[in-house]
Every structure is written in structure tokens, then in C-alpha cells.
């Protein structure tokens, strides 16, 4: 059980990348990428977790209480924003690609080859 969280993170990474490789629709591809990115959130938060500890916000709890690691949460917050911005940018490209190519199948974009 003690590695379940890590295994879930690994699984999300693999399945997300598999989705990207096999995708036939750019919008679908972007969402698959988001799944792969979610794996890093799970990995980071799992690493910083401490059994029985409280959220790292002393306000309603005394300062001697053990808390989970605030650093991984800060990292994950940054990561969430970065992933979302990349998704937005990719979707913008997908919309334009559809206008120019008339297709959203990544295999049918064929301006570049060789």
C-alpha cells in the first residue's frame, strides 16, 4: 500500500503519453497531455505527505502540530498554473490549425516533412 500513490502517478504519466501518441484529434491530445501533467501533481503531493499531519496552515491549530510539507504544495500550485497555460496555448494552436488545414487529426497536418 505504501507505494500506491507513487504507482498511480507513474500510471497517469504512462497512460497520458500513450494518449498523446495515439491521439487522432488535437483537442483530445491536449487533454491527454493534461492527464500526464496531473501525474506530477500526484507525485509531488504524495512525496510531501506525512501520515496524520495537518494541512500547513496554522490558524486554527497550534504551532506544535505536525504538518505536511508546504513546499510540495507550493511547487504543485506553480505546476497547475504552468500546465493550464500550456493547454491554453496548445488549444489556440489547434483552433488555428483547424482553420488552415481543415483537420484536427495530427497525422493529417502535412506542411512539414523530411
Amino acid at each position: 500500500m505504501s507505494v500506491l500513490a507513487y504507482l498511480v502517478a507513474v500510471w497517469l504519466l504512462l497512460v497520458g503519453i500513450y494518449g498523446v501518441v495515439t491521439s487522432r484529434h488535437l483537442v483530445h491530445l491536449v487533454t491527454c497531455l493534461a492527464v500526464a501533467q496531473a501525474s506530477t501533481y500526484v507525485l509531488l503531493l504524495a512525496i510531501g505527505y506525512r501520515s496524520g499531519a495537518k494541512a500547513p496552515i496554522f490558524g486554527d491549530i497550534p504551532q506544535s502540530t505536525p504538518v505536511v510539507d508546504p513546499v510540495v504544495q507550493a511547487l504543485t500550485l506553480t505546476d497547475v498554473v504552468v500546465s493550464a497555460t500550456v493547454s491554453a496555448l496548445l488549444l489556440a494552436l489547434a483552433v488555428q490549425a483547424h482553420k488552415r488545414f481543415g483537420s484536427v487529426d495530427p497525422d493529417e497536418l502535412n506542411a512539414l516533412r523530411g
Partner: protein
Amino acid sequence: MALASLAILVPLCAAVLLAATTSLRRRRAADAVALGAAVAVLGLCLALVARSSDAPIVAWLGGWHPRHGVALGIDLYADPLAAGLAAFAALLTVAGLVVSMQQVDTASHLFHALVLTCLAGMVGFCLAGDLFTIFVFFELMGVSAYALSGFRVSERAPLEGALNFAITNSIGSLLLLAGIGLLYGRTGALNLAQMGVAVAQRPPDALVAVAFALVVCGFFVKAAIVPFHFWLADAYAVAPTSICLIFAGALSELGLYGVARVYFTVFSGALGGHEEAIRDVLLVLGLLTALVGGVMCAGQRHLKRMVAFATVAHMGILLCGVALLDSAGLAGVAVFVVGDGLVKAGLFVAIGALEDRRGSVDEHRLFGRGRGLPALGALFGVCGLALAALPPFGPFLGRALIEDAASHRGLDWVAPLLVVASALVGGAVLRVVRTVFLGRGAKPPPSRSAGADEAGEDPAERERPARAPVVVAFALVGLGLAWGLVPGLVDAVSGATAHFVDRPAYAAAVLRDASPHVPSVASKGPGVAAWLYGLASAGLAVVVASVRTVPEGPLRELHSGRVGDYVAWLATGAAVVAGVFALTLG
């Protein structure tokens, strides 16, 4: 102390200012603000190089100095090598902005803002002393670069190039971040120096080996190392010229800088006993990249794509230098990055100028049409010879130092292979001189359009092509040639790299506030063998230039333009690197 953070904050301020005033549409003002900011960054970085030439500068952001060996905050670490690379990125950005002043398709405040955020990302990436900060600035330059490469949205090729670029590089940063997560789980630290101390406390296991592999693969995607490289030609060949030169001259090189920085601060202690295994893997990948890039380069008729593959080939040569994992190899890499980057940047600008005048970047369509442009033709010729490492110019000096460092380690077989790669690249450029500017050889039949969309940058909008880009091209190439002749260069760079590879000194400077001296090294220049190799590759390049086509075999088919294929290759590369490292290092 303030210099380092100002070098990052100044371009950000200017970018914000430009974005806030988009609706004003003042082209000249935007040019001036962006150029001013880039010049300021260049000045700040050069000042950093000068200030750090004795001892590195450590700046603790927020004033949070480490306590009891634990870093609470984030530091910026400027040593001559890091600051020098940042200055080089700023120099190319200045050149790019000057070139873009003449282009119609970059007339937007947003373009300038994106160039400046990209610059801030590159400078921050060079100076960051914290692994997660490295990731953040890696992403900042990445996101700016995706948008810039797709900036000409009205054409098809830039869109496809930008998509391939963004998707593959996002997966690269995913691998990098996963590696950072694993390392944080082991060390409970993000500061490079502190991580290095913590990692070295235990014998390396699979966790450290795989984390290293993931970080390296993440950087390899940006550095376009085979088989992570497929996106590069798609993206670089379609971006506006002013952007191409920044990308090809600095952006990819930063990927390898990341590998070296992280290895020599975090891993060299723990994995030092396995240097041989790491060296073998990196050397194989480097040589593969150099040769694949060279063959593909020689097979291109789309000129920008040709230079893009030249970039791939040269990233392979650079990786060979990094793979030696010592100060001498890195000194060669540092010299090569600047010399080669300047020449390639100049070549990109020259191609842009040719396109302005003749409306195409396709070698076959341009056949013989460059006859009226002797200056440009001469410039192409000089670039071709310099890229083929003709002594004594900048690219030669860098490659020679790498070759000497390799043979010093008993790896005498590396140099001949690098000669072949350089000759293919230089030969391809010289062939363009033969066909386009001299009109020699068989005239190609009018055939299908080249690999990428032929539309290119619209030449019809201007009656008189601008002169400024030609001047910039000559200046860049001139600087690249002169780089090899700077007196005392090799000594200065060797001192900087000797400090760069010194992990204990780095840790002492960061965690214990010591100020280790950057050593002064008296090194000898390239040996006789290296001169002969340089002459040989220049001669071989002339031979390659006279051949009609270079057979590429099935290689061309692999560069299919399909992002699914690219990601599959990326996963394969990551699996191989991670698997080999897990088996040999863990």
C-alpha cells in the same frame, strides 16, 4: 548582487510595459523599448561576467540565507560561464530585434513582449541556483518560444511546427519535473548545492539513477538530441528569421547547459564512480546526433531547414564535449557554442535577406538566381567553411578543444566522426553557394515543392529590401570568425569551466558563504592533430558540396512531421536512457 536579479527583472518590466500598451500600436516605440531592454540585459550580463571572474556571485532572493546548510529561499548563482551564456543569449536577442525591425510580420507589441519574456527565461535559466527555479524559467522560455514559432498564424507550416514544438517540449518538461520530484523525495531540498550534498551521502540507487535520467531527458528534448530532436527542424524552419537566430544560437544550447549544470552540482558526487557508464551513453547519443543531423542537413533543399539540421548536428558535437564530463571538454563546448552560434545566427539572417530579395528559400527554385548577389554569396561561402571548422575561426577552435579533450581521455575515434558531421554541414552550405550563387551543376527540374510550405515570409510587401539585416549578418559572422582569434580566450574559458565542474567549491559558495576563487588556468591551444582535422573537414566539405545529393536512406521517412511519431521516439529515448542508467548506475 543586484545585477543578477536585475538581468531578469528588466526584460520582464519591459515586456509588461509593452503588453500594457498593445492598443497604442506604436511600432517604433515598441522597437526602442525592446531593444533598450535587451541591450540593458546584455550590459548587466557582461558586468556579471566581469564581476564574477574572480569569485562567483551568489544572490539570495528575499534575503533568505541558508541556515545550518538548509536553503530556505532561492539563490541566483553567477559564475563566468553562466553569466557568459546569459550574455550570449542577450546578444543574439539584440541581433534578432534589430533584424525584426525590418519585418512586416512582426509588427506587434506582443511580438516584442514575447521576445523579452523568452530572454528573461533564458537568463533566469542560466543563473538559477535552484532546481525548481530552473524548471520554471525553462518553461518561461519554452512557452514564449512556442508562441513565437507559431507567430505567423496565417500560414500552415508555422502552426504545425509550433504544435510539434509545444507538445514534444511539454512532455520533456514533464520528465524533468518528474525527475525533480524524485530528487526532492530523496533529498528534501531544491537548492542545487544542498541537493548535491544530500545525494552524495548515500551510495547511488535506482532512484538517483532514474531521476538523473529523467532530468537529462527533459533537457535533451530542448537540446534536440537524437531521438528527442524531431521537432526542432519543424519549429526552427518556420519561425520568423529574427527568432530563428535566437533559437538556433542559444535556446537549444541552454538544454545542454542544463545537463552540465545539474550534473556538476547535484550528481557528480554520487555518480562520480560511474563516470565511464554515463560518458559512454552520452557519447553514443552525441555522435548519433551529430551524424543524423549532418546527413539530414546535407539532404535539405529548404535553406532554413538545412540550418535547423545543422543545429542538430552541432548539438551532437556539443554533447560529445559535455559527455567527457571534465573541464577541458566543457571549455571546448563553451567556445564552440559562441563561435558556432554566431555563425549560424548570421547564416539565418543571410537566408532571410536572400528570401527578401528572391522570394524563396528553396534551393532548387533559387538555382542560379543568386548570381546578382555576390556579397551574400561570399557570406554563405565563409559560413560554410567556418561551419566545416576551417582553422583558425571560432567553430574550429571549439571543436578542436573538444577533440583534444577526447583524445586526452583515449577516445581517439571521436574526432574523425566529428569531422564527418562538420563536413556534411559545411558541405551543404557550400553546395548552396555552388547552385544558388554560382549556378553550377545540373539545373534541377521544376518539381514538387520542398519539405516545408513554400510561402515563406511574404517578400512582395516591400519594393526595396532592407539593408540592415545584411549588415547584422556580416557582423554576426565576423564576430563568430574573430572569436577563434581572441587572445587569452582559451585560458579564461578553461578557468571558468574548471570552476564550473568543482562541486565542493560550488557548495561552499552557496551554503557556507565562502568565495572560492575562479582558478586561472594556463592551457595550450589546439594541437597539431586538431588543426589537421580542421583542414580535413573543410576539404571534405568542399567534396560534399560538389556532390549532387547525399543519400539519406530511410532517415528522411522518420522525420514524418507527425507529432505522434515524435512522441513515440521521445518515449523510446527516455526508456533507453532511464533503463540503461537504472541498470548501470543503480
